């Protein structure tokens, strides 16, 4: 029978895999068994944990988000739009939906009965292949990278593709843990722990956790003879016990452990120690759950055999950053992870370059990252700034040795460039013969910068005071830092120039407390967060920390934290600066991820009012810290 409505369904489906490989007749059959539904914005199609539906869905119009709930928060995993398929889970697994599908806008969907569709899977090899391939390869559509007709991650949640997501998934932990009473004798508790091979016992009173006894307590309090083995639990237990809510993510569990320096967390119904115990999370649970996270990226980096594999890691890293930002994980925590992986990437690139050249380095050397990489503040793909220092050699060998290292640097920087780190605009990369030289040459270079700080020289050299040892022989780097320490000590001229350079940055706010935006050019009317907000803080931290003779802390956040420790009288201000810096980094990272850029230019019209206020509040400490610099280095005399 003629059915024009079925025809519209056919005409839509036939453009998307796996339907495209079905015959007209088959599609017609599918169409007349299809139901058409509408979803309101934010309507939930299915929820993680719901029993699976008898239909799977194809989006006709609109968009549906797939999200995972953990820490009572939703994390968006994927957005599907026209032609995308979802709800295929029942094809592969008999258990409940894992993800929640929620309409992000008003949508029209086709619901196709799974039982009915099964015949086409068995009949048509291509359909089966499509489903299997998608299942195996994790790209949702193995035939088409253009994002049409995707199969979704909900089928493939256990696969590598979503590895980094696992880090933010609820952690698996021991439910109904073994507990003991405060009056129990240590001896018996130890026996129970040994028999059940567990590392800790929660001490409970009326089902509420009041303390914890771990292997560590037994070691430090019993084995040392501090307490007899007949002591009662309440005498030696660690109290209070750190409690967390159910449904906590791996990332959060790890952070709480780091924060309180504990190896066990007690899970309670509502997360406080006033509710009943429901489980225990050990460090081991965290490690086990992380099988697929930064750790794995590091491992993949170390095993990479070419630039392509390194590039893959860098791309995964972007996903990880995005997820971390979405989850509001502290920016300093994210920076640390990212820095570790960036360092591993560079190291691997160096190793691969040495292999490529075929002969081992003629002398010992050190690879050093400078600038933002040196400060470990590189969240987005920004420039690479690096340098190479090699051991002093006989003048006769010098040229040959330098040639080797320049070639090595050429390979390394080139592969880093391919991975996604662009060459720095000032050409501060180790392949530049100016930044690839012997220890003595480098010491002379620094001495020139320190003793004769011409304005132009300083501008570049500032970068070189934020450096991080990456690869090679640490002693070489130490030789450099030792020299710097001595030379800058009480060097008024040097600091005066550094300080005046710091103060040259443009202020972020105008006279009426309005944002000062770019007046012209490509970035007209945007706010340059790097130049006007981040750099003043970075520069201030650098000059202040160097004036204390500290050269080994390069991270701006940590520099301010250290300054707060060193100068009690200004501790509050420095803490504010540290926080402001993190918040600004957060803004920049979000902007960068959103636009796949370096995040330097913030479009103010896209910020919410509260975000604008937050941003403005970050500027206050900038002015104050600049005042400190002005007074401390007697700048008024110079400029």
């Amino acid at each position, binding site marked *: 029978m003629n059915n024009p409505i079925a025809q519209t369904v056919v005409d839509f489906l036939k453009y998307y895999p796996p339907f495209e490989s079905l015959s007209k007749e088959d599609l017609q059959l599918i169409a007349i068994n299809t139901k*058409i539904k509408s979803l309101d914005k934010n309507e939930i199609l299915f929820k993680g944990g719901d029993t699976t539906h008898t239909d799977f869905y194809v989006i006709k119009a609109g968009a549906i988000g797939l999200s995972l709930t953990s820490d009572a928060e939703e994390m968006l995993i994927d957005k599907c739009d026209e032609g995308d398929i979802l709800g295929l889970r029942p094809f592969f697994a008999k258990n409940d939906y894992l993800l929640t599908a929620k309409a992000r806008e008003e949508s029209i969907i086709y619901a196709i009965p799974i039982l009915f569709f099964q015949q086409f899977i068995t009949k048509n090899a291509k359909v089966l292949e499509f489903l299997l391939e998608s299942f195996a390869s994790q790209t949702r559509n193995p035939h088409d990278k253009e994002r049409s007709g995707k199969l979704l991650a909900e089928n493939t949640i256990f696969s590598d593709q979503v590895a980094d997501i696992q880090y933010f998934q609820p952690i698996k932990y021991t439910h109904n843990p073994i507990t003991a009473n405060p009056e129990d004798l240590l001896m018996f508790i130890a026996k129970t722990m040994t028999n059940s091979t567990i590392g800790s016992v929660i001490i409970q009173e009326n089902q509420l956790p009041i303390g914890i006894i771990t292997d560590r307590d037994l070691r430090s309090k019993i084995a040392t003879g501090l307490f007899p083995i007949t002591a009662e639990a309440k005498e030696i237990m660690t109290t209070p016990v750190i409690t967390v809510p159910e449904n906590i993510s791996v990332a959060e569990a790890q952070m709480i452990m780091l924060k309180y320096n504990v190896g066990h967390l007690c899970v309670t119904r509502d997360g406080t120690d006033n509710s009943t115990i429901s489980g225990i999370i050990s460090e081991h649970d965290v490690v086990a759950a992380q099988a697929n996270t930064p750790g794995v990226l590091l491992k993949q980096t170390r095993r990479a055999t070419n630039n392509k594999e390194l590039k893959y890691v860098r791309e995964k890293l972007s996903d990880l950053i995005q997820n971390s930002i979405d989850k509001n994980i502290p920016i300093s925590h994210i920076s640390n992870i990212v820095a570790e992986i960036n360092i591993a990437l560079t190291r691997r690139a160096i190793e691969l370059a040495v292999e490529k050249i075929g002969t081992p380095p003629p002398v010992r050397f050190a690879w050093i990252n400078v600038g933002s990489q040196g400060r470990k503040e590189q969240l987005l793909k920004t420039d690479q700034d690096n340098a190479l220092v090699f051991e002093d050699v006989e003048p006769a060998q010098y040229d040959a040795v330098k040639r080797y290292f320049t070639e090595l640097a050429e390979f390394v920087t080139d592969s880093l460039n391919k991975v996604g780190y662009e060459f720095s605009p000032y050409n501060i990369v180790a392949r530049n013969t100016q930044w690839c030289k012997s220890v003595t040459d480098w010491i002379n270079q620094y001495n020139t910068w320190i003793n004769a700080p011409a304005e132009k020289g300083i501008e570049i050299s500032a970068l070189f005071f934020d450096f991080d040892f990456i690869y090679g022989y640490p002693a070489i780097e130490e030789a450099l830092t030792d020299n710097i320490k001595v030379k800058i000590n009480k060097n008024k001229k040097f600091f005066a120039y550094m300080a005046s350079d710091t103060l040259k940055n443009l202020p972020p706010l105008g006279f009426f407390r309005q944002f000062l935006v770019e007046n012209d050019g490509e970035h007209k009317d945007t706010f340059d967060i790097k130049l006007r907000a981040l750099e003043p803080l970075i520069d201030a931290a650098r000059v202040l920390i160097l004036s204390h003779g500290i050269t080994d802390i390069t991270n701006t956040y940590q520099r301010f934290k250290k300054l707060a420790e060193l100068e009690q009288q200004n501790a509050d201000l420095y803490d504010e600066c540290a926080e402001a810096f993190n918040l600004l980094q957060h803004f920049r990272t979000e902007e960068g991820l959103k636009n796949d850029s370096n995040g330097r230019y913030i479009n103010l019209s896209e910020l919410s009012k509260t975000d604008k206020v937050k941003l403005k509040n970050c500027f206050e400490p900038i002015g104050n810290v600049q005042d400190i610099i002005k007074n401390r280095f007697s700048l008024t005399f110079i400029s």
Partner: protein
Amino acid sequence: MAFDWITGGSLPQFWKNYTSFFEDDNNALQKKYVVFDMDATGLDWKEDVILSIVALGVDGDAINVGEFIEIYIQQDKYTSNSIAAQGIVNNGAEKVVEAEAMIQFLNFAKDAVLVGHNVNLDIEMINQALKRLGLGRLKNQFMDTNVLYQKLKDLPDGTKTGLDEICDALKIDKNERNTISGNTYSTALAFIKMKKKLDI
């Protein structure tokens, strides 16, 4: 003969079947709707007659694509002027007499709630056709997408809103709107969308 009941006086089987659906007031959980649209020779329900009917089944909040009927009616007395005016191309589809059309339609609709845009006129046209067959009026409940739209937008009673405008407001693709089956489909989409928003 198909018209036996007219002379015989007893009601035809299909009508008995149809009315029997309304006897037990079953409150099925999943409400059944039939969205329909028709093409007629004009807008005067007394004078004009139906040329074709398209109907589409809706279960709860889902359109059943397979539950579809399209009936073309043989109306000898009338020229095909208005057919041309409506732009309907009847590519030689089989036409049936009005009585057969009513049998098919009632068998399809059963006791479902009838839904249409400005549905009163269509209902009356069907009632007239049934009257010509010596039968009673439609027993179905019915709903009007125009009225639903009034409620949705808090428009004053009696406001007439065209289907096109409603489709625009509800972001429904109108590229199928030139045929009555297209109209029916758009009406059905508008219906399930508004039904959801109005929480019916």
